[in-house]
């Protein structure tokens, strides 16, 4: 770190931005950079490509040549095969209800708490904020056994949507998103409405929420990924096949049924593709929302 002490006077090209400097570094460096990034992209994307290839192959071909399949060997039969064992429509619907329930609950709790934490002074505000931070520090898995005892054993919510949804309601990320957003709005806006005699509920419903569409969208998208991809909790709560979300049903298929099939990997990968597509599409369409939020949430955590 000795370089920090050097006075800026001695810098040869005074304030050349780093981007420019890199560009001047020459084409060789850009080519090397591109090769590194390209190799990385290949490693990240190949499994997705291979998942789709495997899902479409009539005869599974694990040889290197099989990664570039013969169009004659492609079929949608595997989709029918998995659908015969795992009711795809039903499990997708379960995933959607589970995810939708978590999103609605998160939005209601998050908007109210986020507005209160950002714009209202009340006794206990610091306490609520601290409580929220605590959920980020403690691993969810510590709560796994007691939540199972409460929800499945005590309240009999096994094989119910409510049982799946409830533990995901204490979502600090959404509260954070709304708190940050409401803080970023000008204070005059709220003061003016108060002077005009609007109640806090009216301010929240008529002013704050209509203005926070971008924050709501971000919260919906970021919240969507969690329950859609979640395996452990719905796996613990649902034993009936008709209540299982797709991730759970597919996992059970992998561990039990698959071994008895002619082309188990074809069926598994067809199911995996169906499970992966909604989340990947949501990500690709709303990329911007993910990249910002996860970083800030990550740094705070």
């Amino acid at each position, binding site marked *: 770190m000795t370089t920090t002490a050097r006075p800026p006077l001695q810098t040869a090209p005074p304030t050349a931005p780093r981007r420019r400097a890199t560009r001047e570094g020459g084409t060789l460096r850009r080519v090397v950079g591109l090769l590194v990034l390209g190799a990385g992209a290949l490693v990240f994307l190949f499994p997705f490509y291979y998942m789709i290839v495997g899902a479409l192959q009539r005869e599974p071909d694990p040889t290197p040549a099989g990664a570039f399949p013969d169009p004659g060997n492609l079929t949608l039969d595997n989709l029918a095969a998995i659908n015969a064992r795992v009711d795809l429509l039903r499990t997708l619907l379960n995933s959607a209800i589970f995810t939708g329930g978590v999103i609605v609950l998160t939005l209601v709790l998050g908007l109210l708490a986020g507005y209160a934490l950002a714009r209202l002074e*009340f006794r206990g505000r610091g306490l609520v904020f601290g409580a929220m931070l605590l959920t980020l520090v403690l691993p969810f*898995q510590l709560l796994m056994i007691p939540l199972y*005892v409460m929800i499945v054993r005590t309240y009999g919510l096994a094989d119910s949507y409510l049982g799946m949804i409830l533990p995901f309601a204490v979502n600090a990320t959404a509260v954070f998103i709304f708190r940050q957003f409401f803080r970023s709005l000008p204070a005059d806006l709220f003061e003016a409405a108060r002077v005009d005699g609007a109640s806090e509920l009216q301010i929240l419903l008529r002013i704050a929420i209509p203005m926070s569409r971008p924050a709501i969208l971000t919260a919906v998208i970021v919240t969507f990924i969690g329950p859609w991809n979640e395996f452990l909790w719905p796996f613990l709560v649902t034993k009936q096949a008709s209540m299982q979300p797709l991730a759970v049903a597919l996992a059970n298929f992998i561990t039990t049924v698959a071994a008895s099939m002619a082309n188990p990997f074809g069926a598994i990968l067809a199911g995996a593709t169906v499970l992966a597509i909604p989340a990947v599409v949501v990500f690709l369409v709303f990329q911007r929302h993910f990249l910002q939020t996860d970083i800030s949430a990550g740094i705070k955590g």
Partner: protein
Amino acid sequence: MSAIATSGTTRRPLQRVFGRHPIGALFALPYAIFWVALFAWPLGLAVYMSFYDYFFAAPGAEVERPFVGLANYVQAFGDPSVRRAALNVAIFILINVPLTVALAMVLATALNSAIPFRTFFRAAYYVPYVTASVAMVSVWLWLFSSGGLVNQILGAAAPDPSWLVNSFWAMPIIALFATWKQLGFYVLLYLAALQNIPDTLYEAAMVDGAGVVRRFFAVTVPGVRQATTLVVILATIVGANFFTEPYLLTGGGGPNGASVSPVLLMYQEGIEQGDAGYAAAIGVVLAVVVMAISLTYRFVFEREDA
């Protein structure tokens, strides 16, 4: 104005107790209720259960669940499965942290320079992170199955027994899978950290005659130290909390529990075997250890910064 003033005076007692906007407490109440019911209460229950012989009985049956003091904890510290799970977390950290730090830093540095297709690369790295573990595990199961693509390429060099049923390789494959799946998140973390390094540092280093490599180690690496601390802390948390990977990828914890994780163990002991008190004790130990480790890391790294 006078109307507001009078309404202000009538509200005063309420405001004296609850602050300037008493309704704020009402707005925060739903979240607080859920927090108490689904966070604080189960947290207390976890600690309570861990001191009792808390097991599941048939529905409706009245059973005694006696207080057993520290017996569950004593059992946990003597349990070879718990030791194996702890070792596995260590193996995971040893593989995951260096790989993640090195790869994420290099990819983020490359992304940070003026390069075409940046958006594409950024998205490509991030896709595995937002895709369901169950879906991604399916592909890895196929890739690393005994007749799978990886072994086809390796030919005679393929391990026997194959990766996922090999007691030596089961855990490293899980670590590799997790590294692959989460790297995109860390690339972006480092990319954000790189924005905070002032350009003058690079310029000064250049004036001093430092080359690309020297600049990377003298300016970039120390400049992103906070992000690196976070990688270590998150790797500890992730390593301790695996479930899907050992359960699905290595068929319920690998041969002889070679890839068992603390959470998988809690599932097996607490829910499959019905010994919930013991599983809760493992959970408490796990949470305490994870928090102690992350606090230590933070303390050590932040002191060095000062």
